[in-house]
């Protein structure tokens, strides 16, 4: 573990502690306004955790909606109620054994569900290819090289790591070169882009780092170079091997306006219903004369 990872771990645990501590303060504080302000710590830490996972759009949306909207409204509602200056009405009931057990059960079932459904594997699926009679396994990783990148998946930085695994090299290989291309060379010359990178062959896994990738869809092929001759391998033909995005705003927008459009609209109808309901409850009684 290098210095960078230590720093990031410290940051992660500090944020996680702040989130949990804030949540505990929300639940145990005897003053309802203080509870509401403790919620600020929870929401901000959660946003920071999103940012740490490079979900920049989600982090900003979290702060914008939860802190700027919902938390302000909660505090507002609390302050608009009677006797705002001495609010000491909150959390009078101490958690009984039943509530404690119920919470533990919920936590346990949550952990079980996450353990058995979440995909923990961080290595991507390897693509098998044959080069000069040898089995070659190709895989692609996100920028830091520890998290896998699915085929056709999204890379959120301008760097992608290609891993080439050769278990039994038949011929002598010295160098591995990867050429990534964007666009069509013949059809559209202005939009065509090419990035080349190479690494010394390692008789296990060779990692080649492609840098300064522009946004958009990329395809790549690897060349194993040796004194006996070159052999070329590439992932099977498809739309794109990976797509580079700068930030996650575009993928989120694409998902919301594409496959999840219906769900998105249904949620907005729900919000509209809530709005109409609130207006109905808050309106003045109109008496018929």
């Amino acid at each position, binding site marked *: 573990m290098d*210095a*960078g990872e230590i720093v990031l771990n410290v940051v992660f645990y500090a944020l996680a502690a702040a989130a949990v501590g804030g949540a505990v303060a929300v639940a145990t504080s005897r003053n309802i306004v203080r509870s509401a302000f403790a919620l600020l710590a929870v929401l901000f830490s959660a946003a920071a955790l999103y940012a740490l996972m490079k979900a*920049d759009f989600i982090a*900003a949306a979290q702060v914008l909606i939860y*802190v*700027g909207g919902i938390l302000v409204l909660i505090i507002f509602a609390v*302050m*608009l109620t009677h006797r705002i200056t001495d609010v000491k009405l909150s959390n009078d009931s101490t958690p009984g054994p039943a509530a404690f057990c119920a919470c533990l059960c919920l936590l346990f079932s949550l952990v079980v569900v996450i353990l058995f459904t979440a995909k923990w594997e961080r290595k991507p699926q390897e693509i098998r290819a044959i080069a000069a009679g040898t089995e070659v396994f190709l895989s692609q990783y*996100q920028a830091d090289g520890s998290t896998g990148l699915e085929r056709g998946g999204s890379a959120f930085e301008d760097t992608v790591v290609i891993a080439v695994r050769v278990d039994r090299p038949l011929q002598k290989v010295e160098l591995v070169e990867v050429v990534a291309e964007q666009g069509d060379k013949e059809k559209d010359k202005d939009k065509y882009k090419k990035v080349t990178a190479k690494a010394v062959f390692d008789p296990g896994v060779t990692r080649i780092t492609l840098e300064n990738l522009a946004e958009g869809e990329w395809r790549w092929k690897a060349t194993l170079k040796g004194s006996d001759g070159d052999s070329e391998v590439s992932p099977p033909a498809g739309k794109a091997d990976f797509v580079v995005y700068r930030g996650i705003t575009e993928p989120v927008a694409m998902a919301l306006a594409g496959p999840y459009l219906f769900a998105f609209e249904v949620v907005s109808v729900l919000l509209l219903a809530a709005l109409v309901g609130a207006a109905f409850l808050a309106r003045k009684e109109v008496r018929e004369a």
Partner: protein
Amino acid sequence: MTVIALASAPWGLEITGLPVLDAFLCIFTVCFMLINFIAVYAGVSTLMERKIAAHMQARVGPYRVGPHGALQWAADALKLMIKEDIIAKETDHFLFRLSPYVVFAGSFACWVALPYMPGWSPANFNIGILYLLAVSSAVVIGILMAGWSSGSKWALFGAMRSAAQIVSYEVPIGLTLLGMLLIYGTLDMQQISMAQEHGLPFGVMGDIQGGLWSWGINRYGPITFIAFLIYYIGALAETNRTPFDIPEAESELVAGYHTEYSGMRFSFFFLSEYANMFVVSAIATTFFLGGWLPPFPTLHAAICSIVGAVALGGLAYGFKKRGFDGTVGVMIGSGLGVLYSVVTGPHGDVHEFGFLAPAGIGRMIEGVFWFSGKCFALIFLMIWLRWTLPRYRVDQLMDLCWKKLTPLAFVNLVLIGVLETRSEWMKLIMDKLKAGGP
């Protein structure tokens, strides 16, 4: 053991050789510089405010410290620092101490995402404007915190008014910015600035460097101009400036949400208010006034504009007694100059001041000059309005926001959307024509 996967330093700089440590050092350096800049900037703008106010009321203003009172702000800052820090008995001590930091952090965090010069912001976010809108919401929370924890009715009322006002005016502001985002198609503040370099209003002559004619405010003629007005009015309300300063109304609420604060804690609120003024002006500059782009893209345009402006300004000065204002003359003159240079075509590139400095740095200095110049012009306008207009009442304020600005902003959004799709159609039709008839 790896808990989180994250890449190394985003900065191409090597200090210690350890990427993450380098990144942290860079961040600390930039933040240190920015905080100091905010402190000095806020001080200077208080002096600016007092001097402008004084001259508008035919007084001289602060005059004793330094030449013409130019060092008054430093004396004020020193006074605030050594003043006694009073915490009243009835306050909620923890929240009372915390809230100045929350408010200041909210406005300071905005400063790192502003596009000060071509290609460089302290933190070049992909989600620029969204981040700015998000972190500035911490200010509302901090104000509510200050008002409630003070344990005073004046402070609480001030805080409630302020929060209600900020939350309400976020609606028209958000809608106008959304309309402009339809035009630019990006949330990145740098790219928004860059997008205003070419084109004339209504998409006429797309690839020409139109100077101030290609800025966001002129993009769709009157529509984007109204968007700018809505944004600016909303920004005045967001920063609690006159005519929307009911949260601090001295005649009703003593001093609003910071009534109970004194010394350094008070000065944090003060700094935050002036920092916020700069931030909203910077957003207006980036979205509507071309960010760091110069108003006159070529030397030719600059000369034409200056000659036209001087000529018309002089003419206007002669007619001043008949009610024709000199500033109008200068504005019309510079506009005509740009229009002339656009019509006659580009005559050289002034973007790179090759004779002043190496090309890149010259462009950066130029960018900083224009960006801060536009921001300070908008801040001057805010100060001007403060000493010109009377204060709104609470109900008038809400009436203006919900019944006038919000519907107007909606109409604006729809119109910009229609015009944007129209230009998409235009492009399609042009492509069809180029390809050889329909």
